[in-house]
Structures are given as structure tokens and as C-alpha cells.
């Protein structure tokens, strides 16, 4: 794909190459359920720079997948509605673009890899056809050239005997191989941003590590921006550069990965890290976060995490905590961010 010289301005009018690659700014998404508005994302903000990997971590229902859907522009509307904020690609707000322009951005600029690769591949077409289709439709490549490109891509994602495997159907591949095919499809049009939505959840542990390494390798080779959406901090530890921790529809902590692991500034992150099983903690009881994630239809007042927080005080139930930065490039939405950061709490 090196011969494809991309001119961003062609498909993204008004692009500013000095602006961050992808910027999610105060994104708000509501779901209308039986006439009631339920907030799913309540002002999420994070920035993805070119050549970096951002892990978006959170429990089920924290709004991480909905955020990625809004970035892709595939949010089911209704019931989901973006009610505020912006998603900027090279400074261009994607939410303000018409559907036709957004369509050209999908695949060309931003691509996504889903969790379950079996259901994300059409069972009726061979994988070669599905990959080649991208070149033929988007690039007008001939059938023969598209096939060669598809073989090249399958080879790139580490599928052995790619030239023969190209005619095979998704059910003839194992789980890990299918996820590789999915990654190949997402990479086909050489996007600048790749979103991987829990890419390894459906795979067994050894294959998980392979897929993660593959994503990391490709991200580095192509100098892409990679967003890893996951609920597993352990999986992203040696792959991500930055972490955004989401809870109840907001980003509660944002920092570099080393900083986050060493000195978390939000009690939720701290509790999450303590809940990871460790080999060197044999015989000790595994810590858990008490309680359940809140129902987005009736969030607790003040800080939404306060009923489950080990550091909570009375004011947490009434006052919404501000965004504070106890260190450079390390932000947290907690009244006691400084104290958590310095490990006084």
C-alpha cells in the first residue's frame, strides 16, 4: 500500500494537519428509552495523537463502546442520540458532516475491529472476496490486483499460506485467524485511526497475546493511531501509551500508561488495579470493588462512583468533582485526586 499517496484534504475537506489526529471533546450521548432520556456518555474527552495507542478502559455500560460507535458514526439513531460535544479528525468535526462524507471516512480514515470476528465476517463470501471488495469498490482496483492486495494483507497479519487461504470462507478459519482476517480488512484502506473494540475478548489467552502483539506491530509500522477498547487493564499494559478510564459515561482518569499503573489518581482506577490477580500475591485475598456499576437511568448524585468508593466522604454524594491534574498530563475527576495520586488515600 506504500504506493498509495494519501491526500487527506481529498476526502476530508478542511483538515488541519497540525491539529490532533482524533479528538473527542465533551461527547454526550443519550438513549431514549420508553420516552425517558438515559445518558450513556456524559462528557467524555480524550485525544489520540498519531503513532500512539490509547486504551479506553471501563466496565460494561461505562459508555466505551457507545463512544466508539459515535466516532465511527454507526450509533443506532434512534434510540441513541449525540446531544453534544465533538469528534474531531484532523480538526474537522465529524458529527457535523453529512452521511455521504462520513461514509468515505469510514474505512479510509477510521476503521474498527470488532470483538467477535465470526459474526463480523459475511459467511456467504470467501475472505479473499471480502477483502478484495474493499479495493475494488473504494479504489477501483481490478479483480486480479485486488486479489493480490488481499493476499498481501493476509500475509501481513500473519496468516500462513495466504495465497491458498484467500478462497476460504470464514467458518474454515479458527478464532484467532478470523480476528487476523478482520484486522486485515480494517487495514485494507490504510486508515489513520484503528479502533479495536475488545479485539481479544472472544479469544483464548495465548491467542490474545498474539493478536495484541500484531496490533502493536502494525500500529508502529504504519504510524497509526490505535484505540484499544477493553475492560481488561492487564491486556493493554504493555501495548498502550495512554489510558482513559471510563466510569458511568465519563472519563474519570486520563494519563500515560506507566503513570496510571504506578500512581493512579482516581480511586476507581486504584481499585481496578488492586483487583488484577498477581502472581506475587499468592495466599492473599483478591480485592474486589464492592457494589455494581450504577444504572445510567438513575445515577447517584455528586460523584457517580461514591457509593463504591473507598475514599468517599460526605461531599462526594452532593458535589460533582471537578477535573484536576495532580501532575502534568495526568487528570482525574475526583475531589481527592491529589491525595490518591500521592497515595495518602
Amino acid at each position, binding site marked *: 500500500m506504500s504506493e498509495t499517496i494519501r491526500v487527506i484534504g481529498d476526502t476530508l475537506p478542511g483538515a488541519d494537519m497540525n491539529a490532533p489526529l482524533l479528538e473527542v471533546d465533551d461527547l454526550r450521548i443519550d438513549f431514549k428509552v420508553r420516552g425517558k432520556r438515559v445518558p450513556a456518555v456524559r462528557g467524555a474527552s480524550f485525544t489520540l495523537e498519531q503513532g500512539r495507542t490509547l486504551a479506553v478502559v471501563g466496565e460494561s455500560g461505562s459508555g466505551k463502546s457507545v463512544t466508539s460507535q459515535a466516532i*465511527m458514526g*454507526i450509533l443506532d439513531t434512534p434510540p441513541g442520540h449525540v446531544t453534544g460535544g465533538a469528534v474531531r479528525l484532523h480538526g474537522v468535526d465529524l458529527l457535523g458532516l453529512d452521511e455521504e462524507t462520513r*461514509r*468515505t*471516512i*469510514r*474505512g*479510509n480514515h477510521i*476503521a*474498527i475491529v*470488532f470483538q*467477535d470476528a465470526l*459474526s*463480523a*465476517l*459475511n*459467511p*456467504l*463470501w470467501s475472505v479473499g472476496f471480502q477483502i478484495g*471488495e*474493499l479495493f475494488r*469498490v*473504494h479504489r477501483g482496483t481490478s479483480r486480479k490486483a485486488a486479489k493480490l492486495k488481499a493476499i498481501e494483507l493476509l500475509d501481513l497479519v500473519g496468516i*500462513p499460506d495466504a495465497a*491458498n*487461504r484467500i*478462497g*476460504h470462507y470464514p467458518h*474454515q*478459519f*479458527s*478464532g*484467532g*485467524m478470523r480476528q487476523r482476517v*478482520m484486522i486485515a*480488512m*480494517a487495514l*485494507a*484502506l490504510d486508515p489513520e485511526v484503528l479502533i479495536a473494540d475488545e479485539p481479544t475478548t472472544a479469544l483464548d489467552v*495465548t*491467542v490474545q497475546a498474539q493478536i495484541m502483539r500484531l496490533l502493536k506491530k502494525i500500529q508502529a509500522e504504519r504510524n497509526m493511531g490505535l484505540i484499544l477498547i477493553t475492560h481488561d487493564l492487564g491486556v493493554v499494559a504493555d501495548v498502550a501509551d495512554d489510558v482513559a478510564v471510563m466510569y458511568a459515561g465519563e472519563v474519570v482518569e486520563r494519563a500515560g500508561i506507566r503513570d496510571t499503573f504506578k500512581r493512579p489518581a482516581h480511586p476507581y482506577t486504584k481499585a481496578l488495579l488492586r483487583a488484577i490477580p498477581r502472581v506475587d500475591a499468592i495466599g492473599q485475598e483478591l480485592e474486589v470493588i464492592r457494589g455494581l456499576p450504577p444504572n445510567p437511568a438513575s445515577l447517584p448524585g455528586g460523584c457517580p462512583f461514591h457509593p463504591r468508593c473507598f475514599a468517599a466522604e460526605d461531599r462526594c454524594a452532593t458535589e460533582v468533582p471537578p477535573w484536576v491534574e495532580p501532575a502534568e498530563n495526568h487528570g482525574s475527576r475526583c475531589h481527592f485526586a491529589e491525595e490518591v495520586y500521592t497515595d495518602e488515600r
Partner: protein
Amino acid sequence: MSELIAPSPSAERQASLWSDAFRAMRKRPDVIIATLVLLIVFAMAAFPRLFTDKDPTVCLGREARLRPDTWFTGDHPLGTDAFGCDFAATLVHGTRPTITLALSVIVVSVVVGLVLGIYAGYYGRWVDGLISRALDVFIVIPMLMGAVLILSLFRGRVSADSLMETIAAPAIALALFGWMEFCRYTRAATLETKNLDYVVAAKCLGASDRRIMFKHILPNAIVPVTAVIPTTIGGIIVTESALAVLGIGVQPPATSWGVLLSKGTEWAGGGYVYLFAWPLAMLILTVFAFATFGDALRDALDPKLR
């Protein structure tokens, strides 16, 4: 690295829904007989000269109403009709209008049904509302009654020269009341398919709505639709002959089996039963063959019945 030891693909038997269905159908004697009957009927429609050397339009008044010879020998194996035309030739040449009409109606119905069904299912909302309500309106009117109403409007106004023109009016009328079943099947299949991950994934890779509909959703909707096609063709042939009996089907000079049947009824009581019995036999045999074939196809395509 379990994934590296994937089974050698070349050794695998190529199995698809269609080839499995074909394999299952090939084993059933009733399907083989039905297929043979249909092949003969199609051959009659395509190459009538293979089956008769007489011209059905050359009729001699002095040869009118000759009863068939025993064992189908002699000059007129099936006798002659009221105007002295060779009845075997008339019957064989009547196959083409009958089959052409049935096939045109089914093609139009399937195409209209598929397109409307997929649009209704994919876009939902007001598109679905509009198409579904139109479908409701058409579905409450029985095909025969609707066709009678439409054709009564056109009656006598159409001057027909070629085959397509003679069958155009009944074909349009029947297709108008024949697309609904295909539309419903397609809509249901589309609703089932459109939220599957691979459709969303295609969308994420920048596929257009039309590409998603016709490359990713339609291939899934084709199966249930295919299964009802042969049976529906049988139904169309029957309805056409009913229209012919009412005098509003295929217009002379073209003769469909329905037209022959209708003419035959006038003479059957007077001792010329063969003028009625032969077209009826052809009709029943063909419809039965379509129904048998369609039934077997539906069974073969339904994985739950395997």
C-alpha cells in the same frame, strides 16, 4: 498455535447450502419425475417443432372435429378441433404462451418483491410503513379477483400482434397481485440480517447502503424466496387458465392451455371430451410437477428438516 494446524482445505468436500440441497433432491424419485416433466414442458415451449410437424394455424374446415385415432397414430394423433386444426399441434404450440406468461409474472413478482422487501426491511420507519401498508392492501385482494378487475378495464383495448403483447395484459395483472409473498419473505430476512455484526462491519468499512443491501443482505434473503418460486409458478398457470375461461386471459390468436381448456368445455358435453381432457391433463401434470419440485426444494433448503 492451534490455529496453524487448520485442516488442509483442498481435501475438504466443498459444501454449500445449494450444493447440499441439490444433492438431497437428486436422491428423490418424485423430484426426478417432476424434473423430467418440467424439462419436457420447457422443451415444448422452446422448440414446439420437435414435438409436432403440423402448423396449428393451417386448419381445414372439412377436417373439423376428427376424433383421435387409437394409439395416437395417423395424421392427427390427438384429432382436430372445431375448426379443423390439428389438436396435438395446437396443444404443443399453446405451451409457449402459457410458460412465457408464468415465467414473466414470476420474474416481475420476485424482482418487485425483493426490492420492495429489502428497502422496507433495511430503512424501516416511513419507508417500511408505506411498503407494508401497500402490501396489506394488495394482500387482502385475492389474485384472481384483482386480476379480473384489472383486466376488465383493459378488455378489448389491446390490439395484440406479437406473443409478448398478447400476454402483456394478463402478465401485468397477475404480477400486480403476485409480489407480496416475496416482499414479506425478503423483508423478514432483511430485518433478521441487517443488525448482524458483518453488516455493521461492512458499514464501518465504508460500504454504501445499496452495497450492503444487495451484496450482504440479499444473498441471505434469496433462500426462503427461492423455495416458494416453483409452487407459485404452478399457481400462476392455474390462475391464468381461470382468467382464460372467463375470456379475459391471453387473447386470440395466441392460445394458452387456459384458452384451449375454455374452448374445450363447449364441446366436451357433445362427445368431444378429448378437446377438454388434453389441455386439462397438460395443465394438471405441469402444475403438479412444479408443486412437487417446489416442495422438495423447500425441504432441501431448510436445514431444520435435514
